[in-house]
């Protein structure tokens, strides 16, 4: 089926080529990082995780979000999603690939990465994260590939695929829960030390993932002859609606607990993010933008008139995606590290090389996504005979 990915028009190849260009440039910058060390990034002794880990966290969410089309189809027999489950699975593959790459580029000694397997340490959450992510990747590759191949050959997929698909439904929340456990089990980091972190992660994941999927469906309808379907998009929109409301609700729960109890070690991080601390306020405009975007998207999603208008819906999904990305991608990591354990405020901002490498990983993810979607959509076009 891979041959389907090398048959495309000018726009297709232009897109592939521009992705490859970004990847190429980023790779050169990465070689520089390998040679110099992580010192070319903005990270420091005080903010020891930055943009890379932030993207990683956000993308685990996107990967887990793919389950929101798989679950209704396999568990509730919601037939309409049968058209697009493959898109959810392939999106998950691309997102997990990006996650793994972000971990690799964040390592100080990437050549030793396999030490995690050579000296397995079940006490470390990172060990489990490595396992859940790789298994989730494998599940989606196997399920996705078999389903699309069966569809191409006009036969039903084998029974064991359904078992794996259901297994992957259970597995999806696991990847994001374990990722949240990376942070919320750490003593002395008041911002993360909260039991609602994993639920919050899941809520934002189930908003951001399907929102991206809606956008991808709209793009596919425009550039190919396959229509993912209006009903499908509207159902996804409802899922996004619930998820983003729950996400903001969870955040407000956190705000209540932190500010009513007034425990400084928990309060100071949120103060830093939204109001600035001791004159340091680099993230303040970002965080308020994020809040504004998330609240606006709730208003536009709850109102049926705006939700059913696909143009408005597209706009809503874009701001929702950006909002959750800032919230989880930037605020979540910086917020945990500022102020530091000695209560010094040391701020963090990514450097240009760091941003280029980040873009490179995103471009790699989108390259994987493009190829997989190209295959899926071509099969769909073949089958429907257009």
């Amino acid at each position, binding site marked *: 089926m891979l041959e389907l990915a090398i048959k495309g028009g000018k726009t297709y190849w232009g897109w592939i080529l521009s992705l490859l260009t970004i990847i190429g440039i980023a790779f050169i910058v990465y070689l520089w990082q390998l040679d*110099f*060390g*992580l*010192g070319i*990034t*903005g*990270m*420091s*002794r*005080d903010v*020891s*995780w930055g943009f890379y880990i932030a993207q990683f966290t956000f993308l685990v969410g996107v990967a887990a979000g793919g389950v929101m089309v798989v679950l209704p189809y396999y568990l509730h027999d919601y037939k309409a999603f049968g058209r697009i489950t493959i898109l959810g699975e392939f999106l998950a593959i691309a997102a997990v690939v990006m996650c793994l790459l972000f*971990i690799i580029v*964040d*390592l*100080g*000694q*990437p050549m*030793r*990465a396999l*030490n*995690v397997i*050579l*000296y397995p*340490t079940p*006490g*470390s*959450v*990172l*060990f489990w994260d*490595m396992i859940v992510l790789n298994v989730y990747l494998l599940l989606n590759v196997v399920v996705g590939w078999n389903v699309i191949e069966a569809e191409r050959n006009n036969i039903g997929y084998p029974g064991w695929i359904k078992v794996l698909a259901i297994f992957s439904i259970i597995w999806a929340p696991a990847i994001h829960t374990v990722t949240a456990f*990376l*942070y919320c089990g*750490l*003593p*002395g*980091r008041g911002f993360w030390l909260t039991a609602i972190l994993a639920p919050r992660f899941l809520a934002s994941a189930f908003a951001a993932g399907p929102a991206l999927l809606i956008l991808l469906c709209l793009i596919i309808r425009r550039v190919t002859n396959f229509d993912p379907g209006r009903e499908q998009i509207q159902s996804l929109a409802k899922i996004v609606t619930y998820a983003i409301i729950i996400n903001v609700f969870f955040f407000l729960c956190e705000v209540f607990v932190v500010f009513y109890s007034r425990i*400084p*070690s928990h309060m100071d991080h949120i103060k830093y993010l939204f109001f600035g601390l001791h004159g340091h306020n680099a993230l303040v405009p970002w965080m308020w933008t994020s809040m504004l975007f998330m609240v606006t998207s709730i208003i536009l999603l709850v109102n049926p008139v705006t939700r059913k208008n696909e143009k408005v819906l597209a706009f809503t999904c874009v701001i929702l995606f950006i909002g959750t990305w800032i919230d989880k991608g930037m605020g979540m990591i910086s917020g*945990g*590290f500022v102020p*530091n*354990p*000695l*209560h*010094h405020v040391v701020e963090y901002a990514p450097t240009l090389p760091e941003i280029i490498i980040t873009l490179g990983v995103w471009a790699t993810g989108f390259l994987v996504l493009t190829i997989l979607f190209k295959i899926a959509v071509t099969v769909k076009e073949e089958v429907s005979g257009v």
Partner: protein
Amino acid sequence: MKNSRRSFLKLAGISALGLGAKPVLNAFASSDEHGPEIFPNQEALTAKRWAMVIDTRKFESEEDFEPIVAACHKIHNVPKLKEKRHKIDWIWIDDFKHVFTYQEHEFLDDRVKHLPFLVLCNHCEKPACVRACPTRATFKREDGIVLMDFHRCIGCRFCMAACPYGSRSFNFRDPRPFVEEENKEFPTRMKGVVEKCNFCAERLAVGKMPACVEASNGAIVVGDLHDPDSNVRDLLKNNYTIRRKPYLGAGPAIYYIV
């Protein structure tokens, strides 16, 4: 010395954990008498549980700390990096309100308010860094010292996020060019690994006291916490001492007499 004899079987066992234990075993299989053995050094200083007491009353100003910090950083080839982001510290000083976060109050007496306090790895009873490390590159020894195996560290910095005391530094670049005066007796580090105070494990192993203790004129004392007659127990019995963030339950082994 108790449990000092370790048979070669254990040695082979260690290598069996890694790969390629077979050639080693084969090579010695023929020697039926007694194979090679590995021991600790006879002169090594040992304890059931190492601990440190810092008598802050014996310090007055920043200058009093300089020789201590300098001794540690010199002996361990700790680089002096100009870029603040890349800073590496094993032991350093800070104000009371930063060292003992959220314990200061408006009316703290002037001495404590303005006195610098030494900060270093706490060698916790239940170290969060050790729990977080995915490769056991950082580990707690039986005698309580929390160490780094720089050979194994993959540089994921999970330990830095986990440490509630900010005691860990990361080599954001090759530290070699920034080591002012190389101490040939101790390695430097390479880029991409985490490092921190090692309680002078390499000095204890050859019967020497930690560098900071030697440079402190008696203000810093280390000893065995589990020995009721030890010097540290004596100090703890006769003075009121505090520890950093005791409420986290990590069980720091560094005590401060204020």
